[in-house]
C-alpha cells in the first residue's frame, strides 16, 4: 500500500506540489490525471525517491523513500515521461542491460514480460531508435518490469502515442494488474481516467478528488446541456451573455451549458438561441464527462 501524507515540494518559488495526501491500495491501477505542469512528474519523483519532499511523508509498502531509498528502488519499476531507452542499442541489448543492472536475467523473469515482449521479440536486433511509438512503449514497459517490481510507476506513458497504441498499452496495464502488480500511472488525457480503478485529479500542484472515475462523474452537481446550432461560436457568445448562464464552453462538436437555475428545460435554452437568430438548434441533457468534472473542480478553486 502507498500512503502519501501531506507532501509538498517547491522549486525556486514555484510550488510544484501542495500538501497532497492520498492512499493507493495494493494491486490497484491508480491514475493521476492532470494537464502538463500540474505537478505529476514531481510527485512521481518523490514517490520513486529521486526527489525529497519539503514537507510530509511517504510510505511505499512500509518503506520510506527518503531514508530507505535503496530498498525502495529495488521494489519499483519506473518509466519516466521522456523516452528513457538507449536509442543506439537494440531491443535485446536494452532489455538485457536493464536486467543485469537490476541483478537479474531476461530468462529468470521472462514469464512476467512474455505477453508484452513477445510482440516485439521478432525485431529484437533492431535499434530502439528505429521503433514506432507503440513498440518503444512495449520495450520500455518490458525494461521497467524485468526485475519483478511490486510497484510500477509510469509517468505519462501515453503522451505522444497514437490512439491504437494507447489502447493496447492500457490493455497491457490491465493484464499486469491481474498479476497483482500495483500500478500508478499519470496522464494528461482526461479520457484515460475511466480506464483506472481510481483517479486523482491534479491541477496546480493540488489534488482535487480521489475517487473511482464513475463516482466522480456521479457526484457532479447540476445538469449539463449539450447545445448545438448552425453556428456554435455565435451560440457560445450569446449564451455567455445570458443572465442564467453559470458556465458554457466548447465541448467537441457541441457546447456544454450549465444553468444557475436548478430547473430549466431544454426548450427554454433552445428558444433563447432561436430568439438570437440561430438556427438548427439542438439541446439535450447529457451525463457529465470527467472533463466536465475537472473543469468544475478547477473553476470553483479559482473563483
Amino acid at each position: 500500500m502507498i500512503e502519501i501524507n501531506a507532501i509538498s515540494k517547491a522549486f525556486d518559488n514555484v510550488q510544484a506540489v501542495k500538501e497532497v495526501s492520498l492512499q493507493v491500495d495494493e494491486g490497484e491501477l491508480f491514475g493521476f490525471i492532470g494537464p502538463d505542469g500540474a505537478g505529476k512528474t514531481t510527485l512521481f519523483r518523490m514517490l520513486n525517491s529521486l526527489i525529497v519532499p519539503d514537507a510530509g511523508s511517504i510510505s511505499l509498502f512500509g518503506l520510506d523513500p527518503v531514508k530507505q531509498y535503496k530498498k525502495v528502488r529495488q521494489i519499483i519499476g519506473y518509466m519516466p515521461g521522456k523516452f528513457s531507452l538507449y536509442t543506439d542499442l537494440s531491443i535485446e541489448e536494452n532489455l538485457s542491460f536493464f536486467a543485469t543492472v537490476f541483478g537479474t536475467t531476461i530468462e529468470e523473469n521472462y514469464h512476467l514480460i512474455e505477453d508484452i515482449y513477445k510482440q516485439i521479440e521478432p525485431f529484437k536486433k533492431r535499434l530502439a531508435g528505429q521503433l514506432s511509438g507503440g513498440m518503444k512503449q512495449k520495450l520500455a514497459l518490458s525494461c521497467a518490469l524485468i526485475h519483478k517490481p511490486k510497484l510500477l510507476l509510469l509517468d505519462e506513458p501515453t503522451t505522444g502515442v497514437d490512439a491504437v497504441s494507447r489502447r493496447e498499452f492500457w490493455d497491457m496495464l490491465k493484464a499486469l494488474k491481474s498479476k497483482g502488480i500495483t500500478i500508478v500511472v499519470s496522464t494528461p488525457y482526461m479520457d484515460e481516467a475511466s480506464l483506472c480503478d481510481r483517479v486523482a485529479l491534479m491541477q496546480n500542484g493540488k489534488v482535487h478528488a480521489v475517487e473511482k472515475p464513475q463516482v466522480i462523474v456521479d457526484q457532479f452537481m447540476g445538469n449539463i446541456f449539450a447545445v448545438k446550432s448552425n453556428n456554435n461560436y455565435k451560440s457560445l457568445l450569446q449564451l455567455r451573455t445570458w443572465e442564467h448562464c453559470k458556465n458554457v464552453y466548447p465541448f467537441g462538436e457541441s457546447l456544454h451549458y450549465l444553468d444557475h437555475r436548478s430547473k430549466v428545460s431544454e426548450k427554454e435554452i433552445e428558444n433563447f438561441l432561436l430568439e438570437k437568430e440561430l438556427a438548427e438548434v439542438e439541446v439535450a441533457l447529457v451525463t457529465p464527462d470527467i472533463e466536465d468534472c475537472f473543469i468544475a473542480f478547477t473553476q470553483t478553486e479559482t473563483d
Partner: protein
Amino acid sequence: MNRFIAFVKKEFLHIFRDYRTMMILFIMPIAQILIFGFAITTEIQNASIAILDKSKDEVTRELTQKLLASGYFSADQYLSSESEIESAFKQGRAKMVIVYESNFGNNYEKIGASNIQLICDASDPNTARILSQYAEGIFASYNRTNQAIGIIPEVRMFYNENLDGFYMSIPGIMAMILMLVSAMMTSISITREKEFGSMEVLLISPLRPLQIILGKVTPYILMAVINTISILALGYWVFGVPVKGSLALLLFECILFTILALSLGILISTVAKNQMVAMFVSMFALMLPVILLSGFIFPIDNMPVILQWISNIIPPKWFIIIVKTIMLKGGGLEYIWKETLILIAFIVVFVGLSVKKFNIRLQD
C-alpha cells in the same frame, strides 16, 4: 561487479554504434600530429629584413652576406637612419631590422666585442622569436669561425628550430587530445543520459553513483591510452621524435592526466543541463586554455604576468612540462615530482567536487 561490467559494455556499444564520433576520436590525434608535423612548420624561409648599417665596413658586409646566404632572410631594404625603422615595420615589409653600431668592424677587431641590435616585429611573437634566434645563431657561428679558423660548424642542423618546434608541439597535442577525448566525451556522454531521461532510471536502479561514474569513465581511459600510444608511435616512427626518458613513467603521467581530464569532464556534466552546454563548456573552459595558456603555442615566459599566474591553474601546463622533461630531456621522476603532485592535487579537488555534486537524487 556484473552490473558494472554490463554498464561498461553498454558504454562501448554507444561508442561503437556512433562510428562518426569514433572516427573523430581515433583519427583526430593522427591528423593533428600530421598537420603539426608537416603543414604548420615553424621554419622560416626568406623572411624580409631591413638593415641599418651605421658602420658600413668589411665586417658588417661579411655578416650581412652570411645572414642572407643562410636562406632564412632576404634583404628587403637598406635603411639610412633610425627614423625609418618604424615605417619599415608599418609597411609590413620587414619582419626584423638589424642595426650595426657605428665603428662595428673596428670594435670587433680591436676590442673583440661590438654591438648589434635586432629589432623584431613582435606582433607575431613566434616568428619574431625564431628570427632573432636564427640571427643570433648566425652571429655566434661567425664568432667561432673567426676564433678557430678552419672549423666550419654545422649551423643549419644546430639551429634548425623547425624540428625542435615540432618536438615542442607533441606534448601540447597530447594534452589537447587527452583533454578532448576524456573531458569532453565523458561530459557529453553523461549529460546525454540526463537529456534522454535514462539517468533517472539508472539512479533508481541498484547501480551506485560511483559505479555509474566509473562505468562512464572506463571506456574513455582505454581510448585515451590508445591515443597516447598512437601519438607517441607516430611521433617516433614518422618524425623521429625520441622518448629520451622512461616510457613507463611517461605512460603513467599520461594516465594521471587522463584521470584528471575525466574528473573535469564529470564535474562539467554535473553542471551542464544538456549535451550542447557540456560541449561548449568543454570547448571554452578546457580547450581554449589548453591551446592559449598552457605554453603549447605561446610561450608562458612571453605572457603578461597576470596570465602567467593564471596559467598555473591550467592543469595541462604542468602536464606539458612533465612530458617535455621526460621525452625531450630524458628527466626522471626526480625532476618532475612537483608537477606530478600538482596533477594529483587537481584530481583530488575535481573528484571531490564532482562526487559531492553527483547526487543520488535529482535535486541539488
